[in-house]
């Protein structure tokens, strides 16, 4: 794994505009950065990222199967009791999932360490699947990148295939907070994939979702949704006025409610308890568990529910050395062994390994200048060096 200076494509911004990539720059700050890229060997991708991702996802499914039969687990994840039946029912119905993203600390040496599983509402999808792919193809065509370079990125094809496989007959809706360009982009891109999968679709804001008298969710014209992709976390959806209507609705949700048990930092403590010493897991415990003492003074304190690194704190030798503000933490915390992000030229990459259905499908990298990857992190493309 190397960080290489490949230089920007001349005119990449107009390429981005033509491709529809509207949020390469956010609030005047760069988000997409192709001045550099990360280069991997094929063995690093296959043995250290792809293989472990598939294995960890399978462990997560095993855990979900147990969680729905054990109220103590659901309670430990701070999932509200009125929601338990909905979570269990969606698992027992085998409601299909579409996608998720496992985030790793990995620098080319030693096993990748799982930091969290964004199993419910991951973003950075379009820029991974489409714009990163275009960057590689154009770099190969221009000779800017070494001939024979590849990329771990079958995301686009896998998403279309998965949507074709799981879409029920009828209208497929894609909803997000459309005031946020990244959220709108992710939902809009998935709508695009669904159209290519042969679905009839509608894209709408969360506030446009309706609830019919017959219990089905619908759009402004009251036509019922057969399926509803919501880029909106379940823990918030269940607090909303429509949350109590999810259980009885004929509408199928993506991600399904059972993904709540994975999109929770408490998962990390449960995985460690089930697979202590797993090379891709870090020791992790719920705060208050006496076993936290085994972490010594170097650990990361994470809220059960948080995003963009918010409310994450890093401790070293017992002292808080880094922390990010945010609104989360009311539901409890875990402590996880510290696996500091690797440092390349003073930059710290975080690897996001995509899962589509139940299979690894691609990779994205977010790069920050500090130890916590927040919402200001840059998206940096990657390639696989020719063998």
């Amino acid at each position: 794994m190397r960080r290489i200076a490949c230089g920007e494509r001349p005119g990449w911004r107009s390429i981005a505009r033509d491709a529809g990539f509207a949020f390469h720059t956010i609030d005047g700050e760069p988000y997409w950065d192709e001045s550099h890229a990360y280069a991997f060997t094929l063995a690093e991708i296959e043995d250290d990222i792809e293989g472990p991702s598939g294995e960890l996802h399978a462990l997560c499914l095993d855990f979900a199967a147990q969680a729905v039969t054990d109220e103590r687990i659901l309670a430990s994840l701070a999932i509200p009791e009125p929601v338990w039946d909905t979570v269990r029912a969606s698992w027992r119905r085998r409601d299909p999932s579409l996608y998720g993203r496992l985030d790793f600390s990995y620098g080319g040496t030693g096993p990748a360490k799982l930091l969290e599983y964004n199993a419910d509402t991951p973003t950075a999808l379009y820029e991974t699947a489409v714009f990163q792919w275009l960057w590689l193809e154009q770099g190969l065509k221009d000779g800017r990148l070494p001939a024979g370079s590849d990329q771990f990125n079958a995301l686009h094809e896998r998403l279309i295939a998965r949507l074709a496989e799981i879409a029920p007959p009828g209208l497929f809706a894609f909803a997000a907070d459309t005031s946020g360009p990244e959220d709108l982009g992710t939902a809009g891109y998935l709508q695009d994939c669904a159209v290519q999968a042969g679905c009839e679709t509608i894209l709408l804001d969360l506030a446009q979702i309706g609830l019919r008298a017959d219990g089905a969710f619908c759009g402004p014209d009251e036509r019922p949704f057969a399926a509803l992709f919501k880029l909106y976390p379940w823990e918030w959806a269940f607090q909303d006025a429509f949350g109590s209507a999810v259980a009885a609705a004929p509408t199928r949700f993506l991600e399904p409610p059972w993904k709540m048990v994975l999109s929770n930092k408490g998962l990390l403590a449960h995985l460690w308890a089930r697979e202590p010493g797993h090379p891709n897991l870090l020791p992790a415990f719920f705060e208050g568990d006496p076993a936290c003492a085994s972490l010594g003074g170097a650990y990361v304190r994470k809220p059960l529910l948080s995003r963009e690194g918010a409310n994450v704190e890093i401790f070293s030798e017992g002292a808080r050395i880094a922390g990010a503000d945010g609104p989360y933490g009311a539901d409890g915390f875990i402590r996880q062994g510290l696996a500091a992000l690797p440092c390349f030229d003073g930059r710290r990459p975080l690897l996001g390994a995509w899962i589509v259905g139940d299979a690894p499908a691609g990779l994205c990298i977010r790069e920050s200048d500090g130890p916590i990857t927040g919402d200001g992190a840059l998206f940096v493309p990657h390639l696989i060096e020719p063998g």
Partner: protein
Amino acid sequence: MADERETARGFGHRPTGRSKPAVTPPDRAATKRSQTVSTVLVAGAGLAALSLGSLDRTVPGRDVLVYPDVTACAADAIRTADDCLSAYNVARAAYPSSAPHYESLPRCEQHHGSNHCETDGTVDLPDPMRFVPRMAGYLLGRTAADGVTPEPVYDHSSGENGHHGAYCTGSGGRITTGSGAHASSGTLKSGSAQATKFGGFGNSGRGFSSFGGS
């Protein structure tokens, strides 16, 4: 919110269809990346300008089909004879429980027109709510995908006599057809009892993106 983007755009429905790949690299046998990547919506409009569903919250009328009986439905050939029959059976089964009940024959006829009401034999005395409109026909969707639950419809009195193509549903929905009692096309305006609610999602948190870790 996306209201500014809504002007002059219709609902965000997208037809099904497949696009031609934008780029098809040659000789791609054993790579770890997609063979082709193309977008059909994103590239045209841009991710920030995708067409969203209309924000108009007024309940639009739904186009439905209304027939007096299965024969008329099948003869119209918009839905298959099988669909016509199964929809009728659904509506007929719903009739006893969903028909509006009135405490007197005059009250019933005031709403539904003279000679359009009868006594519900399943209601025991002394319950006064024994008078119901006869089932004048039934409504169903133009296609199965419309998701319309078949319902019985009743003549709806307007003024003197006759309904001038007006029917109603058990929950107070109004149906107007263009050309009289046997027209197949109608527009259903939901009654208040069937109101769809909006705005029940999105209030617990807005504007996040899920990429983080340490």
